[in-house]
């Protein structure tokens, strides 16, 4: 038997409604020789402990770059151009003043102390995000020793305890195996163990189940949910799969070409979507509940190339409710409606 995992003794953080991370007007641009790519172009949201925020959108909508901006790991030539990312409190000192992550240099000691310790990331492709040359145990231990004074022996014991927590069978044996010896589902579990190594308060999961089969996906989503309950984790779940969002999220941000077009509680987004993109997207997803051989409503056109970003509202060339001379001229502002939902569309006001 592995030693009693210390992580399980930690009582779940008190779930309160105060955000622990606030993103305001985030803009991350890539300055390429071919032109400027506005990967993230003004995105705001709050992350709360014990709750799951879903960032959903199709390819190129900027959901992954948003996550990377929070952690300060945007690949050059990308950089944060504007906006603030406030991290409230710290694990050691909950009353500490908030830190603006957007203002910290990515390589600073302060940022390094936050990355992994306060905010951890689970990548999409577990095979390419591990090193092939080290055992999974070694890689988890590295994360533990980076943020604590644990000895190798203590770190090793903790790695086994973590693998046990995430449901890896025979953790004492698996800890000394290499990533290629594990199946996709197990690799993703190890990835989660590594992310949990330093008891982060915020977990960002970037397409955590996209590369997995449905039955394995169900296992991993189940694991994420139970870990969140035990530890009061704030989860940012990034995915293109509306089914996963419906299953997991409390609040949803729908993104299109770098902009948050709509934001609200999950039930409202699915049952009363307000932005034409959300409406069209929901109509066009194949559903297992549909009658066999039924045609889907389609969304015309395709996602524009990032260099050919349409003027005005980025969705206007595909929008069924397009208003000529308005939507193609001006960018709709983000409106906060009476019920607290946010939508960025002229149909809901904000006309110049």
């Amino acid at each position, binding site marked *: 038997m592995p030693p009693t995992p210390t992580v399980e003794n930690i009582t779940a953080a008190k779930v309160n409604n105060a955000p622990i991370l606030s993103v305001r007007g985030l803009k991350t641009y890539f300055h390429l020789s071919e032109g400027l790519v506005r990967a993230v172009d003004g995105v705001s949201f709050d992350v709360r402990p014990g709750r799951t925020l879903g960032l959903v959108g*199709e*390819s190129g909508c900027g959901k992954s770059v948003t996550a990377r901006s929070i952690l300060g790991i945007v690949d050059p030539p990308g950089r944060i151009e504007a906006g603030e990312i406030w991290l409230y409190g710290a694990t050691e000192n909950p009353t500490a003043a908030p830190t603006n992550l957007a203002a910290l240099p990515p390589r600073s000691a302060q940022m390094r102390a936050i990355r992994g310790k306060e905010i951890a990331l689970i990548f999409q492709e577990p095979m390419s995000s591990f090193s092939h040359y080290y055992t999974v145990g070694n890689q988890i231990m590295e994360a533990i020793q980076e943020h604590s004074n644990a000895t190798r022996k203590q770190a090793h014991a903790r790695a086994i305890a973590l693998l046990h927590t995430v449901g890896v*069978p025979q953790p004492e044996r698996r800890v000394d195996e290499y990533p290629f010896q594990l*199946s*996709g*589902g*197990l690799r993703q579990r190890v990835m989660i163990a590594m992310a949990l190594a330093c008891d982060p308060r915020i977990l960002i999961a970037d397409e955590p189940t996209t590369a997995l*089969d*449905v*039955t*394995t*996906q*169900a*296992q991993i*989503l*189940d694991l994420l949910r139970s870990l969140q309950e035990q530890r009061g984790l704030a989860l940012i779940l990034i995915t*293109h*799969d*509306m*089914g*996963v*969002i*419906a*299953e997991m*999220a409390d609040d949803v941000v729908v993104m299109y070409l770098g902009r948050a077009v709509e934001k609200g509680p*999950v*039930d409202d987004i*699915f*049952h009363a979507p307000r932005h034409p993109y959300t409406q*069209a*997207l*929901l109509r*066009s*997803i*194949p*559903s*297992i*509940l*549909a*009658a*066999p*051989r*039924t*045609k*889907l*409503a*389609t*969304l015309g056109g*395709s*996602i524009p190339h990032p260099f050919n970003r349409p003027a005005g509202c980025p969705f206007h060339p595909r929008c069924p409710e397009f208003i000529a001379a308005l939507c193609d001229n001006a960018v709709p502002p983000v409106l906060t409606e009476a019920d607290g939902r946010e939508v960025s569309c002229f149909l809901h006001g904000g006309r110049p």
Partner: protein
Amino acid sequence: MNVLEVTDLRKHFPIRRGFLRRIVGHVRAVDGVTFHIRKGETLALVGESGCGKTTVSRCILRALAPTAGAIRLSIDGSVVDLATLSKRELKRYRRHMQMVFQDPFSSLNPRMGIADIIGEPLLVNGMRSADERRKRVGELLDMVQLPRAYRSRFPHAFSGGQRQRIGIARALALNPSLIVADEPVSALDVSVQAQILNLMLDLQDRLGLTYLFVAHDLSVVKHISDRVAVMYVGRIVEIASTQSLYERPKHPYTEALLSAVPKADPRIRADRVILEREVADPANPPPGCYFHPRCRYAQERCRVEAPQMEEVEPNRWVSCHRAREISLRGVQ
């Protein structure tokens, strides 16, 4: 009329070890698969990675030579067994079965214009006249709803969805008896997926096409198929009409698979069947029913005796000892 009849198809890949590359075992990628496809219908082959669904489709196209079994294709009233033909003999028949690929980026030659990509099968199969080819390519572009003016462009100028349309036009060029589509929409964004699925449904209605649709996404499969075959570790465990398979699955694996699919409605966060452990290794499968180590209905018999395919209801075939006694949950 059956366009395709596959009987007891097997494909075993040898595992070689050591200096002499001796064969030490076999990966039973496909291990006795039997099904048929009627003219004008879509049969979906579903299952998780490694279940052998792609190997089945590649054997049918004879991109792989099957180890055993028969693959009978009806062509203009006569029936040919593709499994036993030599490469040379096969050439005459290849035009009758065409493929739509998964990745629209690597399946089109970047150095060829669209007219050449779509026209190449015509040229290879003896349509020498450039005018005739031009006319046919125009028709095909109309069918897949791409403007004829795009014929001189190259693949890089197209989006993923448009490229998939080009791939479909190429597959249609020779009026094939059977189209094998291996994950044709899984590389596309959701908003584009719907366009391609609708196009495939439309073309089928208009031209009476027959599809073998290989996919892992059960939601996509529901929108396109008439019948569904579920595979697990190289074998079909259940085959039935789409409606009955989704509403009343008869095999525990089908139940788990259906239940695992996230439903796009937050009001039904279903209590799902979560499968324990991992998929069996096709090189070293467990005794008895391959699914028994993960099956919550498994009994002693399942551990020792492999179940056979049985017709439990008209046109419903299930390979499970307990198919008649257990009642399973589907999706409505």
